[in-house]
């Protein structure tokens, strides 16, 4: 008799907790989706920012009930099953102390299904999002249409980009201690420290480093790719809004890592074209001293890329003396 009563109580406890959990979870999920979700970083400036924000919010919708469930159960058990007696309570016996294979099994099944679903969801989001703005290495497999052609053309020095042409714009990000420079292979390979992007365009960021590992993190663009020496790490995004963004280094790169940031902006395609052509012609005199465009740059014996200085750095670095008219093939 007492046993039957106990198990009734048990069912009540679980039922009560379950319905409370469902209600609180649904309410909080809805509130999160409406009130918090749209403000989750990094905003909606690019296709990857939008997609990754959506991803984050989906994960949060699943995470909230988990948090509420476990914390709620901890709280519930402290309220209901805390021993009020002084000293050591009697041991718990009978069915309350017994194991429950059904509970174990359902826990395992539910967590497994959730986790596998999350992995499938993440994989689909990664592929549909063309790498989601993360660095895909030198041989990217999830790419926007036309990117392979644009990249090859850029490397051969035949790259072009025109407004309203729906072309992929390749841009090289060169990280070094402790700054980023950007190279535009479709505009005569000029180099600048200000990243300017056209709106509504697929961008292929080719990220490399001249010295140590950095990470190119264009925060509002939702692009993050490690800059490795001698490696071309490619990441894609599509700009969808005008505005400013900040670029930070997110991989510890030495002394001034904390100060390694600069700003960029997304402008209209016409403005971008005007800016790029103006910068190309303005910098042409300097651009000719730069090494020829390549996906990676080898630091040479003369210290062109912060390499080894055999004479104790007595001779200042000079691109003219180093290269003459042509970079040594290395």
């Amino acid at each position, binding site marked *: 008799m007492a046993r039957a009563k106990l198990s009734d109580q048990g069912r009540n406890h679980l039922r009560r907790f379950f319905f409370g959990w469902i209600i609180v979870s649904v309410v909080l999920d809805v509130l999160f989706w409406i009130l918090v979700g749209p403000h989750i*970083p990094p905003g909606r400036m690019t296709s990857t920012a939008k997609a990754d924000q959506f991803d984050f919010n989906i994960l949060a919708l699943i995470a909230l009930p988990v948090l509420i469930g476990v914390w709620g*159960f901890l709280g519930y058990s402290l309220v209901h099953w805390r021993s009020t007696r002084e000293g050591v309570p009697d*041991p718990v016996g009978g069915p309350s102390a017994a194991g429950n294979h059904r509970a174990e099994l359902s*826990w395992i099944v539910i967590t497994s299904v959730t986790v596998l679903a999350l992995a499938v969801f993440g994989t689909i989001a990664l592929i549909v999002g063309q790498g989601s703005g993360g660095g895909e290495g030198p041989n990217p497999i999830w790419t926007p249409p036309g990117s392979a052609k644009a990249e090859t053309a850029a490397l051969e020095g035949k790259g072009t980009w025109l407004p309203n042409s729906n072309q992929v714009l390749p841009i090289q990000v060169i990280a070094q201690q402790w700054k980023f420079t950007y190279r535009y292979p479709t505009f005569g390979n000029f180099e600048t420290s200000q990243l300017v992007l056209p709106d509504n365009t697929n961008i292929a960021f080719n990220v490399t480093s001249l010295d140590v590992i950095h990470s190119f993190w264009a925060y509002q663009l939702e692009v993050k790719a490690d800059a490795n020496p001698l490696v071309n790490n490619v990441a894609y995004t599509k700009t969808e809004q005008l505005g400013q963004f900040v670029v930070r280094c*997110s991989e510890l790169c030495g002394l001034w*890592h904390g100060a390694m940031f600069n700003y960029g902006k997304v402008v209209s395609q016409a403005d971008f074209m005007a800016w790029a052509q103006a910068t190309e012609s303005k910098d042409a005199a300097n651009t000719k001293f730069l090494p020829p465009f390549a996906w990676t740059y080898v630091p040479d014996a003369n210290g062109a890329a912060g390499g080894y200085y055999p004479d*104790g750095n007595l001779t200042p670095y000079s691109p003219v003396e180093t290269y003459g008219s042509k970079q040594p093939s290395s």
Partner: protein
Amino acid sequence: MTISAEPPQEMDVSEAAPVSTYGPRSWGGGWLSQHLGTAIVLGFFGYIFGHWLGNYIAGGYVYVQGSGQNSTADFLALLFMVLGWLGGIGALNYPLAKLIGRDAKEDPEYPGWSRYFRYTLDHKVVGVQYIVGVLLFFFTGGLLAMAIRTELLNPTVHVFNAGTYIKIVSEHGTIMMMMASSIVVGPLGNYFVPLMIGARRMAYPRIEAFSFWIFTAGYFVIFSALPFGGFPTGWTGYAPLQTQAGPGMISYLFGFAVISIGMMAAGFNIAVTIINYRAPGMTWSRVPVFVWSIIATAALLTLASPVLFAAGLFGILDKTVLTAFYVTEHGGSSYLWENLFWFFGHPEVYIMALPGFGIVGEIIPVFCRKPLFAYRVAAAGMIGVALLSFFVWQHHIFQSGINPDMRPLFMLTTELISIPTGFIFLVGLGTLYKAKIRLEVPMLFCLAVYFNFLIGGVSGVFLSDVPVNVTVHGGFFVLSHFHYTIMGGIVFAFMAGLYFWLPKITGRTLNKKLSLWHFWMMFIFFNLTFFPMFIIGLLGQPRRVFTYAKGLQGLNDFSSVSAFLLGASFLIFVANLVYSLYINPQKAPANPWDSLGLEWQTATPIPVYNFERIPVIMTDPYHYSEEGAPPLADFGEEPLVPASSSTGAGVAPEE
């Protein structure tokens, strides 16, 4: 009565008392024999000798021309310092004597205080040495954390310059990671595993003592980086920066190599002990869940640390004899370090998590007066986590430019690991269900582990998702995530273990009021310190920066002030220890929590060889309540301990 195996201990009784069989040293005992002081002296002279030797054999072989820095000398100095330290403490006496075919003469066990400063083979002494050792590690790392939070109080007004700040960050990370890898296995694992499995000693007491003394040597090696100018790489030590860095980098690389030797030794010894030294009747389904967690951890220590050792060795070779393992320009690869490091680094994460799961699994039934729920699932979860942890390492380098089709695979394995981790939650929640919960201090810490680790685990799922990883990788979100799992998980669990077992170790009751103050301050300010960091990270603050966006100052200041108070909570902890152990010592009963665990069935203080007779285990230690359940263990001539009665549980065989 079921007896599964013959006790190995009873077969070689002379082995059970290894030390007393050797005669005293010929050159005197007392403070003239080997102890901490001789270790320091020999370590000092070893350093000088090694530095001289390095300059002698490789004097013209400087790393950067004109710098005068000779990495060979820097490395050999540290190597001979460690050898001198080990020789000075007496760790080499036995192997060296055996090598030349002599009988080893070792000091007899010293009674009293002195043995805590010596190469002692009693696992309980080593356990206490480890407690003091990891607390020293932890408090030095904690002071560095206070320095970090001080610097981050203001984005433009700087307390340290950028270089000093990077050194502090790197040293904090390295010290804390090395501390956390031993924080439970070392102190509580060494102390309680033999007691819990009914063994009189460890399988390899010398290896056990060696693991502690080389662990302390590693502490000095890692700290030697600071006088050498520090290292700028953080605890991850990524390669081109590592190759570029100054002599402090040698301390980091060699420190890791040294500590990984200690980790291998500790893991190997504990794994062998658990497999071979279980008392008769201690079948695998009766092994306490803490022991399960320790054997899973021991396996990880033994298998993952060699990779770190090799990685550190490659780095040292790169810097001393100018090999090019990590130098991309000369045919090496910076990815090699990243992969080797994280191939160790991810099992390391679970080295720092699993023992915490074991502690909560061990403590919660005691304060619920209920059997552990789903014991088999708990054990399976720990083994599952240990196995899977070798297959997830690339999630640390999702954005590094690794082969892109590896990313879905590692996303999958990383998310899979949350299934066995979830088992630990099932076990805890199932045990709480309809229990009679006593909110003693160890129980509070255990509940806090569940509270914190849930945040750590759920944020880990965000990090494992590659698209979201683009947002959060390399920022304060990650930082907060792993502080929630390491500090919120294992440090809280370690504190639970200390409050639970210190009465057994010291024979003293800890002051409850101070303990509660410590708990609540630590719990509240831990969460107030690290939860804002999730937001700081989402708002775009990268890790390891000395300056940040102006708009983030409010959150950073909030976090900093909370961090100072979190640091202050440990002052209460220390005050509690001093007060309860020395100023106003209160004798603790032999079994203050009425636990059924085998370790509580011994007398306090625990006799040198733990058990007068090897107990015969009759059931698992969680049968709090079943009617007619068999007693826990048969101690021989003494009356059986009735398992179902809470009053009988504290009776030790000697009393």
